[in-house]
């Protein structure tokens, strides 16, 4: 070893910062990313990863199974199966993500809000460039982003699988239209589910109760609608109050399909979804308007 007298041990210690700060945009990005990690259980104990992994498995299973079928059965035979309704169209596969969506909405998403309230992080966040609005925006961004992935990833994987098996849409134009429909339906449905989930979860500080609140909101409304339409023989328009199926109905309409309830006009389907999103956002804001100060 040679020494030329240039070696230094630097103790930087605490120092001033004169660089550029990232502002509100950076605060939202950082909070959304931190929330995403927290919700998925990354950097946390194994038990926090169980629910997210379950959701991923449920979300991906249909796409993987049907791509496997496509590969095993091959071209013409597979197309016949499509016609017989054995394997889904893209819109149907997107709608099949409903099970994963509801699992995520009930079991995983409430963690995005509840943890901060329980751990006292809300008051710390509000002492940063974040306001209550931008804080909630970061939370909605994180949760809806994850939910969008639940719709996007399996359906896009399915689209790619079908394309590689020469069973995808004809031509680049059709292929792109399908992709855009997948992305649009994923974004809209995920925002609606995220708002419903966060709105219901904002009613309590306990995660178990928050999950219960989400499930009761969604399944409670679904049961009421079922009773009204099926048992009491009321108008099928009451289906617009069903928060479980309306986003899925919207996905079908985006793909140009008739959907599960063709009697309900498309504009009413969109209005119903906007209504659920609006009411959930109002509940969320009412709960956070003066929280954490």
């Amino acid at each position, binding site marked *: 070893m040679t020494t030329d007298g240039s070696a230094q041990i630097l103790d*930087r*210690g*605490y*120092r*001033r*910062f004169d*660089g550029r*700060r*990232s*502002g*509100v945009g*950076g*605060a939202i990005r*950082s*909070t959304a990313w*931190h929330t995403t990690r927290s919700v998925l259980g990354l*950097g*946390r*104990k194994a038990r*926090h990863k169980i629910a997210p992994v379950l959701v991923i498995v449920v979300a991906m299973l249909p796409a993987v199974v049907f791509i496997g079928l496509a590969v095993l059965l091959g071209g013409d035979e597979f197309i016949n199966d499509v016609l017989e309704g054995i394997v889904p169209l893209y819109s149907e596969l997107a709608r099949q993500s409903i099970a994963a969506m509801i699992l995520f909405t009930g079991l995983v998403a409430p963690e995005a809000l509840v*943890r901060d309230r*329980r*751990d*006292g*992080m809300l*008051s*710390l*966040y*509000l*002492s*940063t*460039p*974040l*306001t209550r609005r*931008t804080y909630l925006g970061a939370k909605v961004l994180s949760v809806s982003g994850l939910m969008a992935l639940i719709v996007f990833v399996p359906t896009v994987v399915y689209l790619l699988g079908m394309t590689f098996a020469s069973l995808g849409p004809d031509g680049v134009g059709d292929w792109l239209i399908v992709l855009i429909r997948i992305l649009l339906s994923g974004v809209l449905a995920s925002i609606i589910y995220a708002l419903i989930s966060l709105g219901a979860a904002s009613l309590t500080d306990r995660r178990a109760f928050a999950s219960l609140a989400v499930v009761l909101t969604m399944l409670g409304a679904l049961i009421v609608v079922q009773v009204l339409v099926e048992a009491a023989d009321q108008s099928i328009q009451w289906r617009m109050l069903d928060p479980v199926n309306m986003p899925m109905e919207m996905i079908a309409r985006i793909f140009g399909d008739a959907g599960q309830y063709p009697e309900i006009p498309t504009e009413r389907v969109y209005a119903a979804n906007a209504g659920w999103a609006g009411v959930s956002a109002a509940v969320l804001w009412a709960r956070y308007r003066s929280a*954490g*100060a």
Partner: protein
Amino acid sequence: MVFGTHRALDSLTLEVPPGVTGLVGANGAGKTTFMSIVLGLRTPTNGSVSVLGLDPLREGAELRANVGYGPERNVFPDDMPASDFVKHLAEVRGMPRSEARSRASDALWLVGLGEERFRALGTMSTGQRQRVKLAQAIAADPSLVLLDEPTDGLDPVQRDEMLALIRQISSEYQIDVMLSSHLLEEVERICDNVVALDAGQLVAQGPLRELVGDVEGVTVELTEIDDVPGSVESVVAHLTAAGLRVTHEPDANRMEVLGASADLIADAVRDAVADSSARVRRIEQRRRRLEDLFEVGAS
């Protein structure tokens, strides 16, 4: 600041200079409400506020990027390592990611948790958690740090260390600090300025050296000898006869003596005690303490 019929802060007009400022008052005095207004989290019912030259309501985001805050509540994400916690909040306050990581480490070293920085917050003691709160408040290099009861739950040694850290942050790094406390003694030890609140009203504000410290006169405490009854009253009579002003509560052996220099009063007390056969327990320059401000405010 009014909540329904409750007036949390009333007619508060003050200006806080740089340095360490103690926001003192009993629980419910309005300290936390005051800090919320400074941060722009509450809107005053009327009046205006300017912090670091910014309006907390209109320029709240810009202001809060330059303010660190340590809340009173001692609850954190238990499964999060201290370094991740401090880094995350530094990022939210505007630090670039790589800078936030190194600054989190530096801040934790500064508060004495360098070796413990990868420990989960849930495994830390109250003293360590208070230090983590301080570290996250300073990690993003704020111009002002607001600390709500930073010594709450600390034993005397930990409290001394925390107060020394707060003083160091101000004197070495020129970060202004406002700390709220109901412990007047600790505010007297480290603060340059004081804002004293009582039931939402301003009791006193200004440089600590002007509000507390030596004042005119001498405090005398006597002990009455059993076989010389009335000796204390006799001392009071002697001092009054010498032209001094004596404040003496009946049945108490303590008195405040004014009306001359401290040396002359001390001489007069010595003579009066000798003539009256009393015994001196304590004699000292009169000194105003922070609790005296509250007594004046109450009266």
